[in-house]
């Protein structure tokens, strides 16, 4: 069993590394297929200037050589120099923005998981009652609302009209509104997931057995039902990571948070290729690693799953 599990983890890790490599490959060649040069959109420069710039950023070498160089550098966390924010390396910019994005993303994920699991369990335990129906209506509405609508409405209502929360990210507590608006969609999704999985678990024989043995009601729920109903939520961790990271592009723009998502959108506006490539690879690696972790964790939590 242990050898089998180790094999599974290794195989899954190999797949993850292969996918990361593929992302680097796609990113590099897609960005190099763009006809425009990053220097052509700005003010007219002389040919000599452009040639000097291209030599500085290494754009004058043949594409395969550039790719091998780029891959080698990326493996050493060197994503090159930014052309949109001159004087900064891409890595500096990414780590500067990631501080904010990681805070927001982590808090939003925790909030979504906690609230989602609680609401889902409450709905399942009160199946068919008004509270279940209310939770179902709310979550159905929430998963039909794009993140930019939620975030803008939050900004308008709680930030500008009611003035309950500061609207600038640099103010104390300024990250609260972005966190709330980012967490709503995954929260609604987890609630629905947890509700159906909890209903499934509650109908199992071992719950009836536990009740028949005379185990206290709360103990049945917490020790037997909730623990087993959590498994599907774990599989959602990877997609949730992806959702939060892409959601942060919108939310950070709306609340002017100087995070990674905003940086990404701005680098598209400035046609900063090195930056676009760097952020894409960085975010993709995060998502792929999260998928890997959630897959492995799922197998640990549910030993019934066949490893072959």
């Amino acid at each position, binding site marked *: 069993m242990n050898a089998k599990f180790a094999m599974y983890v290794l195989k899954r890790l190999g797949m993850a590394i292969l996918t990361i490599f593929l992302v680097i490959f796609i990113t590099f060649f897609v960005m190099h*297929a763009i006809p*425009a040069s990053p220097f052509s959109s700005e003010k007219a420069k002389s040919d000599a200037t452009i040639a000097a710039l291209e030599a500085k950023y290494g754009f004058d070498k043949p594409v395969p050589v550039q790719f091998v160089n780029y891959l080698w550098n990326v493996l050493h966390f060197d994503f090159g120099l930014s052309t949109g924010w001159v004087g900064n390396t891409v890595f500096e910019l990414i780590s500067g923005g990631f501080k904010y994005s990681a805070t927001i993303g982590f808090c939003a994920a925790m909030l979504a998981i906690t609230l989602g699991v609680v609401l889902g369990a409450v709905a399942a335990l009160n199946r068919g009652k008004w509270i279940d129906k209310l939770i179902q209506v709310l979550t159905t509405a929430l998963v039909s609302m*794009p993140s930019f609508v939620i975030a803008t409405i939050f900004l308008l209502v709680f930030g500008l009209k009611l003035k309950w929360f500061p609207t600038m990210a640099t103010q104390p507590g300024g990250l609260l509104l972005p966190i709330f608006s980012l967490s709503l969609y995954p929260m609604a999704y987890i609630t629905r997931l947890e509700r159906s999985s909890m209903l499934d678990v509650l109908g199992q024989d071992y719950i009836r057995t536990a009740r028949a043995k005379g185990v206290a009601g709360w103990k049945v729920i917490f020790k037997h039902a909730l623990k087993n109903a959590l498994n599907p939520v774990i599989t959602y961790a990877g997609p949730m990571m992806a959702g939060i990271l892409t959601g942060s592009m919108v939310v950070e723009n709306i609340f002017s948070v100087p995070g990674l998502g905003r940086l990404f959108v701005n680098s598209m506006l400035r046609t900063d290729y090195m930056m676009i490539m760097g952020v894409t690879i960085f975010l993709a690696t995060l998502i792929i690693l999260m998928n890997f972790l959630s897959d492995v964790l799922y197998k640990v939590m549910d030993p019934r799953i066949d490893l072959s």
Partner: protein
Amino acid sequence: MQNDKPLKKNPLSFQIDPELFNLASEEEKAQQVTQRESVSFMRDAMRRLRKNKIAMICLAIIILIALIAIVVPEIYPYSYTKQDVSAKNLAPFEYSKKEQAKIDKGADVFPHIMGTDSLGRDYCIRVIYGTRISLTVGIISALIVVIIGIIYGSISGYFGGKVDLIMMRIVDIIYALPDVLIVILLSVAIKDWVATSKSQFIIKLGAGMVSIFIVFGLLYWVGMARQVRGQVLSIKEQEYVLASRSIGASPARIIRKHMIPNCLSVIIITAALQIPSAIFTESFLSFLGLGVSVPMPSLGSLASEARSGLQSYPHLLIFPAASIFLIVLSFNLLGNGLRDAFDPKLRS
């Protein structure tokens, strides 16, 4: 021949009644056929769908929105590009001074139902146009996904073996890619490429739309392909397929009578849930400025533009937001209804 007159059973004997072995008359055969058709899978599912009130209301809403999006731009007195400097930022049903003067003279002026935007364009027609774009993107993307997914999935499932293994490895790899990031990346690249293209068709359609379709064609079919392949694989092994093959049914008949109807439920459910996800993706890209090109409105770009004057003119956000919410909600609930009606596993 002695068999000419029908055999008659002695009422008191225990012999088998020979009448039971007479050939069936045409009438009796016809009866069998009608009985089988009256419980056909499609009809059964449609009946169940019709009983689902929420799904039917959503279907009605979608049809209504689609009709508005198709018809209204043809008869509406304002165009989505026409700017009127004298009628900037009007509230819903408000008239500009120039228009008010016209009304005082007795002329008929069509009201700005949702007001105007900061460039003096009628907002109602822009929201309706945006809805049109969103619906088009949703439906065409779903079509692309359905076509590629069915072809890929059925080839993989039908041939099985090595072909299946290789084809599914490719699907696994595409599935593992973080799709939204690749979508953004491709949109950046394709937008640049399309902007320099000289094809009249692409220019008319807009770079953003083209890139969204290409991206869906490249990435989003994998879910559908997996579903179809799984379905084809399991149907191939079913006893009734073996039975119909054993009595000499041609492969064409097996595909027509067994494969397609059984895959149809999976295809319909997946396609119905694909539409809202496509609309989401389009509005997300448009919001980031990667979707449709100016002056073409999309619900995402309208919401994005509305941010600049949010405090004074919140209605500029509320109308496109409500529109997208209504469309996605209706498609989601209809998709759930379709799943309940079409999923054979849930049938009692």
